[in-house]
Every structure is written in C-alpha cells, then in structure tokens.
C-alpha cells in the first residue's frame, strides 16, 4: 500500500468513441450504470441522484445539471458503513465533444477533505468505472471480469 495521503482533489479523464448524449445517458440511467458502476443502479429523480444496490437505496444532492454537458452532485459513500459516516464530497462530470466522433469525459472528485477513507477508496474505483464505461459504450458489452 502507498503511504501517500490520498488526494483531496482527484481528476480522471477518458476519451470515448460516442456522442455526448450517449455518455450522458450512460451516467444517468440505471440500465447503463448497473453494467459498469459496481452493479449500482443510478438515476436522476426529483432533483437528486439516486443510487440503488440490492435493497439499499441512497440519494445525493444534484448541485448542477446541464445535459448533456455537465453534472455536479454531492458524494456520500453510503455503500460502506465506515465511509458513510464521513462528510459529503463533490463529483463533477464534464462531457466535451472532440473532433471525429469522440467525447472527452472528465470526472473531478473534490472537496474530499472531510472524507479521507472515501478519498483513498475511490482512487482505484474511478479508474475501474471509467474504463468499464468506455468499454460499454464502444463495444455494447460490459468489461469482462
């Protein structure tokens, strides 16, 4: 394990061969998210970002939504009792069209000062999620594994 303290602002970026609308749907609709987001069913409902995992459901505040370009919401690690007690942090999804039918998706997870365990845990998680999202959109199939 690394002895380095996890960063309180983390940035992840990936180029995806898809339209901004497809990327937006993939991050806001449960039938997509469950295929790459650790099986979590995510949807935007009544101004909140609602996550469902098995019988558990939890909601985060939507701080800004500009489909299909930008989504900002609070982040609570409700899936883990230890991390759930930490302060909320913030996640920003930026979707930017590029030349040649490619879309750049950037995830900024910041305001993690009050959530050190979350900061440590999501670092690997976002890589897995973005890699899986790219594969799903480009091949129509979830990442093998």
């Amino acid at each position, binding site marked *: 394990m690394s002895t*380095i303290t996890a*960063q309180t*602002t*983390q*940035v*992840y*970026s*990936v*180029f995806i*061969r898809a339209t901004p609308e497809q990327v937006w749907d993939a991050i806001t609709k449960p039938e997509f998210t469950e295929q790459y987001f650790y099986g979590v069913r995510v949807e935007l409902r009544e101004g909140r970002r609602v996550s469902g995992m098995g019988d558990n459901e939890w909601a985060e505040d939507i701080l800004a939504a500009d489909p299909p370009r930008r989504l900002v919401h609070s982040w609570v690690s409700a899936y883990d009792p230890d991390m759930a007690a930490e302060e909320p942090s913030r996640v920003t999804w930026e979707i930017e069209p590029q030349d040649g039918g*490619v879309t750049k998706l*950037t995830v*900024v997870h910041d305001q993690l000062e009050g959530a050190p365990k979350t900061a440590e845990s999501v670092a690997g998680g*976002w*890589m*897995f999620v*973005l*890699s899986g999202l*790219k*594969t799903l959109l*480009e*091949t129509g199939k979830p*990442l*093998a*594994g």
Partner: protein
Amino acid sequence: MTFWSHKMRGMDDDQVFKALADSTRRHLLDRLYERDGRTLTELESELEMTRFGVMKHLRVLEDAGLVVTRREGREKLHFLNPVPIRLIHDRWIDKYTEHRVAALADLKHELEESA
C-alpha cells in the same frame, strides 16, 4: 468493436507507451502521484531543466492523456490521470481471460472426446 475504434485505441496506446518511455516524464508523473494539482512553476523547481523543457514534456503527457490540466483562478494545475494506464491493463487482462476461457473450452472438448 469496429475496426476503426481498434485502430484508434492502438494509437492511444502508442502515445501512452511513448510518453512513458522517458525518465523525465516518469519523474514528472511520480511528482504528481505524490501530490496532485501542481503548477508548472512548482514542477519546474524540482527538475534540472528549463521551463520550456518541462512544458514540452508536460505537453507529451497531456497529449497521451496521462496528465489533465485544470484552471483554478489564474493558475493552471496539473493532475495525474491514471485511466490510460488502466485501459492498457484491462486490455491485457481481457486477453488473458480470453485465453483461460479458451483453454477451459479445449479441456472440455478433450474430456468429452475421451469419455
């Protein structure tokens, strides 16, 4: 996956490998791994290199997607983006998984033949 996206993906990989094939650039990534969100001035102060040289290396890393820059006020901050390395990892892991699946399929075939 279409042929074109395979080709695109291959090109992405080439850029990542080329960007990593330089000790100064790996050193820059190590500095960002220790602490993210640094300015050019901060990164430059830790290297025996001109500002222009550091800028050039950061540009290669940015083109390969290994570094992402963000503006905060008047400052341009550099962040390590590990996703391209993860994609290469996934690609090889996928290959090995396929190989294992194929080996099991062959084994099943052989066992059924000899039964």
